């Protein structure tokens, strides 16, 4: 029992991961898709951060009396991944703005319809 509850942050990761991916697949609104994508990415951030953390661990400083260190590398890696995530969201939202300007809609099914018409002409 304790094994299952003790790793509760991984359960959160799995939930967010599935929820995010589901939103990307199931929602037709382009903004909602991007939100889903961000939730999906955030779950991976938590995965990395969780694995680096040790209960009672301190920063890795050599000092008498400090025995348990937390590994800072996953945290630093995730800083990079967060930047990538922000950049992706920015580019994605910019694209949605341009799509809205050109098509007048950001609903996937309406976009598909407009493109289908374009293909036939």
């Amino acid at each position, binding site marked *: 029992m304790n094994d299952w509850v003790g790793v509760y942050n991984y359960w959160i990761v799995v939930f967010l991961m599935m929820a995010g991916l589901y939103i*990307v697949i199931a929602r037709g609104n382009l903004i909602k*898709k991007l939100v889903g994508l961000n939730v999906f990415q955030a779950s991976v951030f938590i995965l990395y951060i969780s*694995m680096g953390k040790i209960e009672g661990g301190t920063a890795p400083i050599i000092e008498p009396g400090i025995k348990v260190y937390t590994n800072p590398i996953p945290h630093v890696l995730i800083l990079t991944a967060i930047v990538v995530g922000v950049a*992706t969201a920015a*580019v994605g939202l910019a*694209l949605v703005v341009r799509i809205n300007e*050109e098509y007048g809609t950001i609903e996937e099914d309406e976009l598909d319809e407009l*493109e289908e018409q374009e293909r036939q002409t």
Partner: protein
Amino acid sequence: MILSNLPALQIVLPLLSAPACVIARRTPAAYAIAFVASWVAFVISCLLLWQVEHAAGGVISYHLGGWAPPWGIEYRIDSVNAYVLLIVAAIGAVVISYAGPSVASEIPEPKRYLFYTCYMLCLTGLLGVTITGDAFNVFVFLEISSLSSYILISVGKDRRALTASYRYLIFGTIGATFYLIGIGLLYQVTGTLNMADLASRIPALTGSRTVHVAFAFIAVGLAMKAALFPLHIWLPNAYAYAPSVVSAFLASTATKVSIYVLLRVYLTIFGPAFSIGSMGINYLLMPFAIAAMFVGSAVAIFQPDIKRMLAYSSIAQIGYMILGFSIATSLGVTAGILHLFNHALMKGALFLAMGCVFYRTGAVSIGSMEGLGRRMPWTMAAFVGGGLGIIGVPLTCGFISKWYLVSAAIERGWWWMAALVLLSSLLAIIYVWRVVEVAYFRPAPADAPSGEAPLLMLIPTWVLVVANVYFGLDTRLSVGVAARAAKALMGGG
């Protein structure tokens, strides 16, 4: 001094040229910077290949900032990635030489310097993915190249470029995040991100469920990035509606680099004994590769838009590359890597030829190509040259890669596979012939625009066509390095 720092310069020079383009701001200055940086990157990649071929053990290990691996980031170059670096840098240089008039006709003046900035960032990302020996670094460079390619695609003239780019963004991000999850799980059990270090620790952990899950996540993520059927949905529109220059550049480099990472992860990090021997990833990928060969080619036949047709043909060609890997012998992997090289040349030439057509006529649909063989003889001759390569006609490099693929299949005793490769090549004849028929055997409409594309565009196109034929006759470089690369990958090191 410079020679020993070539691995860093390979990345740093194109990377620095990107902000330089922004600062330069004026289009000619930005273009000049991008042009010089791309060609210097090409020269560096040639020198690197030469160094690797003459290095002791065939490996150059470069420690960034002097931090020794596995703690610091290591650039690790062997014949595999030196070869892929050469492909990417060569295509980058040829395409930038072509870019001037084509970009001028397709992208509005105020955006052009930013276009060149993104082009250089994309080149940096692709080179970075290839050169690095650090699994997380691969993710960072992958995203640099992807983010800039979303922008490059979205500036296409057709408004469908926007939705294509959005779709690519969703797929690309999911793919890269899957890869990131896989790397995270591997880090969890091994505590390292250095590829060579990972390779030495994983054999002891092959029973671990975490490693198996990481294996699966990375496979799906990279297959998405490489547009392996049935995860190719993002590719056709992205290549069809992107500016001509971008289609040519991405079609010959982006998916290739993902396939390189796939080979690297499964053959170097996990090792052939685990990924092929006990996990059987080759049997998993094989049906998809074969389906890609047929579905890609068959759909290509029915495309009225020629750039879209070429994009579907790319999906089929990716099938051939993965098929080479899935044969899982040294000869098979050689065929896969060789096709990576040859396909970059062929598809580059074809997309550049389509760029010339678009420049002159403003359309690339099959209907607008009537009589084009006489209206633009040099461009269409280049298209035919590239098309013959796609079919795999002798004297072109496409023949060489099909030859190796077929002999690798026969070596394993898989006659049915050799037959399938030949059958799917027949489909390529149909879609190439369709264009040839319209362009050469139908009279041109009276009011059709006539005249050749500018020499600045024709020369780079023909450079690729001539390279097509050259590497179909003299295979010392292409096959020689590919064979050594396959040996390095399959030999567990």
